[in-house]
């Protein structure tokens, strides 16, 4: 699929994306781009709208307004074309609990129409890389959260998609797997044509891994850019991403007040 034709070189473009679940919008008029060769970090507090944005990108929820474009394809009207170009790791590892990782990956590879030889070869390599051999034929219901997350990562990487959409992909992983994923992602985008949309609220990870970051707060993009560019915008030139984030989301004062009030108890 990596070599499948595209309409636009841009892995992902959001234009005025709005997602709502019946109440106030979870994402409100969001516009951003993931450029070729880029790992774009989407940062935000809980409920900021990161997962809703990602669900609109991968076609789980339909936008209330705005447009999503994956290499020029629209997930709403061109679902199959869009989804065949995306590898996705969801925030929660809710899979087909009754299937084993082998059965699940065979289903995913078949739906993605992977040629048998390449599915077998890549499957074997990824299973070995993530050390899934022991759990390969056990039902997913019996696996730990970390192992489920590894299965999801293998499923996302199996077809070498030109766009990876990862929602908190390092959740539950052991240090070895965290390192493996980080190194894999850096190499993944090195060819210059692929892109990664990476959601996290772990600032250290975003700081070390992402080419650019966007800070989402209550559904609105507060700031976007490279870390040096964001530092320039903040009051302190040597600020960490966490300090920039808390400053932009106006949460630094709230955190201090909350700690003070707890200490008084």
């Amino acid at each position, binding site marked *: 699929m990596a070599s499948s034709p595209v309409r636009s070189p841009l892995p992902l473009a959001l234009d005025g994306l709005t997602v709502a*679940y*019946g*109440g106030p919008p979870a994402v409100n008029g969001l516009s951003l781009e993931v450029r070729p060769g880029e790992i774009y970090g989407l940062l935000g507090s809980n409920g900021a709208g990161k997962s809703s944005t990602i*669900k609109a990108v*991968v*076609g*789980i*929820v*339909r936008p209330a307004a705005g447009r999503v474009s994956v290499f020029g394809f629209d997930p709403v009207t*061109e*679902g*199959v*074309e*869009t*989804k*065949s170009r*995306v590898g*996705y790791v*969801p925030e*929660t590892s*809710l*899979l*087909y*609990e*009754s*299937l*084993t990782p*082998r*059965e699940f*990956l*065979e*289903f*995913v*590879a*078949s*739906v*993605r*129409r*992977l*040629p*048998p030889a390449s*599915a*077998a*070869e890549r*499957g*074997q390599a990824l*299973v*070995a890389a993530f050390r*899934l*051999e*022991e759990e*390969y*034929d*056990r*039902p997913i*219901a*019996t696996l730990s959260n970390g192992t489920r997350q590894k299965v999801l990562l293998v499923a996302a990487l199996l077809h070498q998609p030109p766009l990876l959409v990862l929602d908190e992909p390092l959740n539950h992983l052991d240090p070895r797997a965290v390192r493996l994923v980080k190194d894999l992602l850096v190499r993944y985008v090195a060819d210059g044509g692929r892109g990664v949309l990476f959601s996290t609220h772990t600032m250290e990870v975003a700081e070390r891994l992402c080419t650019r970051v966007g800070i989402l707060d209550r559904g609105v993009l507060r700031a976007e850019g490279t870390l040096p560019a964001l530092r320039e915008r903040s009051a302190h030139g040597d600020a960490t991403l966490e300090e920039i984030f808390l400053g932009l989301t106006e949460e630094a004062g709230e955190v201090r007040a909350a700690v003070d009030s707890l200490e008084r108890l």
Partner: protein
Amino acid sequence: MGWRAALRLSGTAFTELSLQAIYAFRQGNVLPGGATGDLVPKARRRVLQSKAMVSGLLGFLTLGAAFLLRDSSLVIAHAFPYYLSTAAFDTGVVTALLGLDLAFLWWTGLQVLPTLLSSSVLPVLETLPLDERTLRRAAAILYLRLFDLPALTVLVLTPVLVAAAVGLPAGLAVIPGVVAAVAFALALSLLTARFFVARVQGARGGGGSTVLRWAYLVLWVIPAFGLFGFVTLAPAFFRELAHLTGAGPSAPFDLLLVAFPFTLASLPSLAAGGSSALPLGSLGLGAVGVASAVYLGLAAACLAWLGGAVRRVGQAPFGVAGSSPPSPFGLRTTGPVRSVLVKDLRIASRNPGYAFLILLPVLDAFALGLLSYAPGSSTGGADSLALGAVTSAALLATFFGPAFFAIEVLAYSYGRTLPLADRSLVLGKAALVVAIYLVAAGVVLGLVDLRLRAPLVFLAFVLAELPAVAAASVVELGLVLRRVRRKGLPVVNLYSGSWTAILVAVPGLIVVALPFTALLLDGGSSSTAALGLMALVSVAELGLAVPVLLGGVGS
């Protein structure tokens, strides 16, 4: 903490369970579009609606039985070409009613218990600072709430209607039977859930393990087959009953008397007509007394066991059964349609609720095939047997077709991110329905053909109906899919989506029945012209269904 706290906790847990049964968030479903503020009341309403439908069906069965009991002499005169005493007939009807009540409640339990296990509502309660007794009570009350309305329907309506039909003593005498049927259904649901957790859900993948899982599922499904099996077996049962009761007291009849539910079903007849109503010797009468006491004791033991067992099952972690065979770690791929079929079969092999839907038509075909060997069974020839067998296989396979859509609830949010066209999804599931039909038809064909040696007649019927079965499943699944895309995901199972399942099953059943109707209008024979007409209607239905139902669905 006491009963009041347990009741309150179970109420909260039941609300969560209702939400999960309808929306399946813990299984990977996403929030439906539109207003989300009323999700909980809507879930409660839909569970209540499904309970009401199950209760309505149980009430309908009870009402039907009461009508048969009221006019038993008339029914015997018109329906049976042999002598059958009123008391024996009444006992047979109550046996059937108790058997159906048990099977139907058990089956309802099977539909919801996987949700109870996967929703983790009981483990969440365990983290609260509550004493053991309160937790045990809360779990037991929660379990009883799953069955409350249907169980109450059986417990209250049966004695009332039997009393109205036969008399007060008979109405009172049926109470032990209904109490035992309900208690056994509740216990069997939980026992099979434990079995499911231990042997099926946690079983490894691989060919040998899959065969073993299906073997377990067949063993386990056979008793639940009673729900439908009785309809198939009823004529043979009454014929055998007439034979046994016509010969006076006998050891075989005494044996039948100690079998559940016949023992307790004989009590209303004995209460209404005295000990001479049935051909009982003193041994037989004693056997009824002892067996009744044993069954009631067993029912009490079941209820006492449920108190603690619900909590243990709710906490049970999934074990991994079987050892790990050395195997390569590559992947075998197929096309998207076949991958849906294989995935559904694999999921069904670890989910008794779905396995039951696959095995029921096959077991029914097996029963039909075996019955053709029973002494005195119809020897009306290959035509009528083939027509009956094919009709039964087609109707059963198609009736449960929509339920296979419920598999899509599992990991729904993830499944929607895969590039699987709706057309492939529908065709994959329709292929499963067609495969079930073919296996069921093959079983009955194989069994009956050993006796009748008319394979071509059977094959002609099976093939003539095949396109109609495919058309019916496309109609049903296409309608479900449209509803899913418009209103969110309906969980099409008995416990939470019975309304949707019935709405789409009706047009499906009409599509399946039309070729048979054409055949019957043409005389019902296996002449080339009649079978040709049947095949023509069948192919025309498929030709219409695919473009109409799948034309509008793409990706």
